């Protein structure tokens, strides 16, 4: 068996197997973590791993089909990964009562503000850009 046919077989099995793709994502994460530790970067290893995968996808060295199913698994089951941390709330019985209501108020008022500012800003800027494009079209 030539190295070339071996590489082809490897790629085909990566395209077909979600488990292999999940393993590949772990490898990229490991590379990211190692890079961060060796270079002393102030970002998490996952971000470096993500940048690496993105660069490989954009440059065409990695096919989307080698990552897609594995990535979708991680994103679809994300609740399972963070739910243990949410249990921290059992150590905070003081949240039951006025303090909890205050926190809820901050979250609701804050979220409503973020929504209003984001949507209004984006919409305003989008319409300005559209109007500018129309003006250009008139003069062309």
């Amino acid at each position, binding site marked *: 068996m030539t190295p070339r046919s071996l590489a082809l077989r490897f790629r085909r099995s990566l395209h077909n197997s979600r488990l292999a793709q999940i393993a590949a994502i772990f490898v990229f994460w490991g590379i990211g973590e190692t890079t961060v530790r060796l270079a002393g970067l102030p970002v998490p*290893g996952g971000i470096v791993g993500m940048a690496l995968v993105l660069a490989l996808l954009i440059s065409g060295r990695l096919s989307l089909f080698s990552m897609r199913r594995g990535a979708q698994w991680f994103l679809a089951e994300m609740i399972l990964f*963070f739910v243990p941390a949410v249990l921290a709330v059992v150590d905070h019985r003081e949240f039951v009562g006025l303090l909890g209501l205050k926190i809820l108020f901050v979250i609701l008022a804050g*979220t409503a503000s973020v929504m209003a500012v984001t949507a209004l800003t984006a*919409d305003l800027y989008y319409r300005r850009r559209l109007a500018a494009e129309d003006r250009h079209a008139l003069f062309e």
Partner: protein
Amino acid sequence: MPSSSEILLHGLFWSALTIGTYFLAKRIYLRWRQPFLMPLAITPALLILIVVTADETYRDYIRSTGWLVSLLGPAMVAFAVPIYEQRALIARHWPVLVVGMLAGTATAILSGWTFASLVGLDDALRLSLLPRSVSTPFAMVVSSDIGGAPDLTAVFVVLTGVFGAILGELMLTILPVKSALARGALFGVAAHASGTAKAHEIGHEEGSVAGLVMVLVGLLNVLVAPLIAHGLPYL
């Protein structure tokens, strides 16, 4: 001192219980499909009930199940795929997306800090509340960067997601925004994955924008976290 086999057994037990509860919660939602039964809400609710009933402390519980939380690291790598899939959207609308995300992130930090100070929350809570709008893996990183408690942030992120989807739908009926770009950004910036799911219900384009913006705004938050940490003492 518990023996190592007891620790292993305890770990297996609570991990299996957590995973089992999660899949049960997903089945419950698929069976009845009520918004208040979304897995984001009932998985923690069921687990809290179990842990409190069993009189288990969080310290013991997280020692057994913390390995699940560490899977958020590789999950971050997975976000490369949705970014790549939405490259056409980025190429076409990046100025609007950038402006919307910057405005939204600044508002998230300032409004969180202002409202929390207004009702008199202490520093640990105020800091843990700041990254509530972004997806959990990013939010927990930001929280530890700025001196908050990452596990409390996870609690606030979940609350934001649960209420954000409903609140977003309400805001859309009040706000005079017509473009799918702005309507999607509203959900992606303010209410992460839960908002994105709601945006997909509203429209295909809104959903795509929300999903992309959610990832990008998470990244943006991680990158500006050191600046926030240095800037907050002056507020």
